[in-house]
């Protein structure tokens, strides 16, 4: 107890720790229960310094000596937990005593502790977030740097604010030369206007849009898929982001695919056309062969009379019909019907002369620039003349829509291993979208009734059948077609059959010939022609009948059709191979359509000579001579 009982009673009721001690001695004169509880060391000790830990007594003495007061925050343990106590020291009784009063600041310390902890946690989170941002930023930089597509951002005024290396390559400029610039600084005005129009659309619609562009001035990508989208940045709501993706390989593949489809379509059309023509020619060839055969016989029978001249005219007309059929067949079977060594300039000269009247009357000037001493080509002169004629007629018709001067320039020249022929006019030219279609069968740009759409298709078929090409050339003024034909080589020329002298073997007995054809009139006509060539003849309607004849007779010569009911030509030839191989070398074939792949294959494998119906007397004579002399022409 202290020396003041009343004060002791008052202080003992306080919930805060209170004590009174001698000063500077430190002997405790009074302490209430709370003080005794919190600072248990004081229970048995009378020394204030001894029972309160954590006070800087030296500083306290200085403060108390100077101001009479001092504050110290201390920690003490009680009931198993930390107590934070703020102790206020005040001298009293003229500095002889020290009054100590404590207040619990545990809650405040807890709040401070928590705030510090949370703050450190927030700092750590912020650092982690920043690291994540830095990593994302670095990753994005790597992403754009390595991206195989152009990536960029433009601000609201169209200035580039971000470009990746691919864009640098695209513009062939360093980023420092692009950033801050607009597309007008990068591209020609017309292309820049196109880009800007697209940007305006993006900003107006606020939508992502894509377009395929072909910028002539940008060499890196030929075809570019451009994707642009609006970016509403905080400081610029009208920004535009974009990707430029090189789609040239895909575009080329598409074009290649389209060309393949076109070629396939063309092939299908030609196959259909070929089948039709094959059918027609087959049907026409047999009656034409009869007409030719009968007319030939009539010519000979009526020799020296007016009837013979009529027969000649019938034969020539029928042969012309046969040539027309053969020409159409040439388109379908892609093979010239006749091959001989030709001078291309002569072909041109003949056609120019033929069309001379028409060109002069249309005030068209023909310029010929034909190279001297061109190597010969191998081909069918009639077909090639028709091709040149078609090109000249097309040019003439095109020029009629133009005022004079009207000019057609025909030039021939050597081009690598080929001979080339160019037919160019100064007419209206060919629209680029039509250039691919003009070779399609039945496609025409000519007025109704003027063109059939078959001329160029036919011509291309003929030239390709000759191993060449017929193409439209790019041309600034008018239209230009170029024909390329391979130079004729070695002795591959098949000359036209030699004209047999009409009387050469008329009365010479040459043995017996068998003519096999399912068309009795045709078989008879050929048989009668063979008789004029000195053969005794038999006819058979198919292979089966021929086999029966062979059992009774021996033949010097066998001429067989290919397509027949029952045993056809191929089956008959196989039968011969098995039973009468001695006759194989005396056998030849007659055919109205060598078009079918099976027929072509058979003729190639059989290796026997053949004549296309309708056949002339001369052709038959040449074939017979060849077979009877032991020749084996193929």
């Amino acid at each position, binding site marked *: 107890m202290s020396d003041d009982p009343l004060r002791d009673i008052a202080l003992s009721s306080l919930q805060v720790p209170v004590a009174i001690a001698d000063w500077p001695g430190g002997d405790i004169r009074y302490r209430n229960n709370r003080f005794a509880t919190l600072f248990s060391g004081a229970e048995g000790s009378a020394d204030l310094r001894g029972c309160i830990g954590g006070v800087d007594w030296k500083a306290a003495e200085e403060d108390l000596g100077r101001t009479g007061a001092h504050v110290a*925050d201390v920690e003490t343990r009680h009931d198993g937990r930390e107590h934070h106590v703020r102790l206020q020291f005040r001298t009293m009784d003229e500095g002889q005593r020290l009054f100590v009063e404590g207040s619990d600041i545990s*809650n*405040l310390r*807890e709040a401070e502790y928590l705030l*510090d902890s949370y703050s450190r946690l*927030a700092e750590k989170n*912020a650092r982690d977030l920043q690291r994540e941002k830095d990593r994302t930023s670095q990753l994005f930089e790597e992403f754009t740097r390595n991206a195989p597509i152009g990536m960029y951002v433009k601000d609201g005024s169209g200035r580039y604010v971000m470009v990746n290396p691919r864009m640098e390559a695209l513009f062939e400029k360093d980023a420092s030369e692009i950033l801050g610039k607009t597309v007008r600084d990068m591209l020609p005005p017309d292309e820049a206007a196109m880009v800007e129009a697209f940007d305006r659309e993006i900003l107006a619609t606020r939508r992502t849009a894509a377009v395929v562009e072909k910028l002539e001035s940008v060499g890196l990508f030929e075809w570019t898929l451009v994707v642009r989208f609006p970016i509403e940045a905080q400081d610029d709501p009208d920004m535009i982001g974009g990707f430029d993706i090189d789609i040239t390989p895909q575009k080329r593949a598409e074009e290649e695919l389209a060309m393949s489809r076109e070629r396939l379509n063309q092939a299908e059309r030609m196959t259909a056309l070929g089948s039709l023509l094959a059918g027609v020619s087959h049907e026409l060839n047999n009656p034409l062969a009869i007409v030719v055969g009968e007319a030939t016989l009539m010519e000979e029978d009526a020799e020296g009379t007016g009837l013979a001249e009529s027969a000649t005219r019938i034969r020539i007309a029928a042969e012309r019909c046969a040539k027309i059929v053969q020409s159409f067949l040439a388109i379908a079977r892609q093979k010239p019907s006749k091959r001989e060594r030709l001078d291309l300039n002569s072909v041109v000269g003949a056609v120019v002369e033929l069309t001379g009247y028409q060109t002069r009357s249309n005030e068209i000037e023909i310029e010929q620039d034909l190279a001297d001493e061109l190597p010969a080509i191998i081909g069918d002169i009639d077909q090639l003349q028709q091709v040149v004629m078609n090109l000249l007629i097309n040019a003439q018709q095109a020029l009629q829509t133009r005022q004079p001067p009207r000019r057609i320039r025909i030039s021939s020249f050597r081009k690598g291993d080929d001979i080339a022929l160019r037919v160019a006019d100064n007419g209206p030219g060919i629209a680029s979208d039509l250039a691919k279609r003009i070779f399609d069968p039945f496609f025409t740009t000519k007025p109704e009734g003027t063109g059939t759409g078959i001329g160029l298709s036919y011509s291309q078929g003929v030239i390709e059948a000759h191993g060449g090409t017929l193409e439209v050339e790019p041309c600034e003024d008018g239209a230009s077609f170029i024909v390329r034909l391979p130079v004729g080589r070695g002795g591959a020329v098949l000359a036209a059959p030699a004209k047999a002298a009409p009387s050469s073997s008329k009365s010479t007995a040459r043995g017996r010939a068998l003519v096999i054809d399912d068309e009795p009139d045709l078989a008879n006509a050929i048989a009668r022609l063979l008789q004029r060539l000195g053969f005794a003849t038999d006819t058979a309607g198919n292979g089966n009948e021929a086999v029966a004849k062979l059992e009774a007779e021996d033949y010097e010569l066998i001429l067989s059709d290919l397509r027949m009911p029952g045993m056809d030509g191929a089956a008959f030839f196989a039968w011969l191979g098995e039973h009468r191989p001695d006759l194989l070398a005396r056998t030849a074939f007659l055919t109205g359509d060598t078009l079918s792949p099976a027929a072509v294959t058979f003729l190639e494998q059989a290796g026997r000579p053949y004549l296309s119906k309708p056949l002339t007397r001369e052709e038959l004579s040449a074939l017979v001579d060849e077979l009877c002399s032991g020749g084996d022409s193929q």
Partner: protein
Amino acid sequence: MASSLFEKYGGFSEVRKVISDFYDGVLSDDMLSHHFEGVNMHRLIDHQTRMISSFLGGPAFLTNEQLAAAHRRLTITHLEFDRLGKIMDDTLQSHDFAGEDRQAVLDQIEDTRPFIVGNSG
């Protein structure tokens, strides 16, 4: 936008000046000063700077749950919280914060009321 307010008013360094002035006002206020006796004001100003910065759109700082935990034994009353808001408003005005920007900050302070006032854990 909040993040632009943080930039607009000069970032941490300027916000710290505001908060420093704010606590000058708080410590000289009879109703509030007792809460801060013995408190390390330097650290408190740091914390409060980051808190108000987050209100202005700066980096995130304390969650509401953390605020509640830190204040749960401090027995702060609604009157004291109102008084604190008034001092903040005056301080922001003295630092030339525009009316709507001031209101944006005060609104966010108001949102923390349930986590600070009368919070007894």
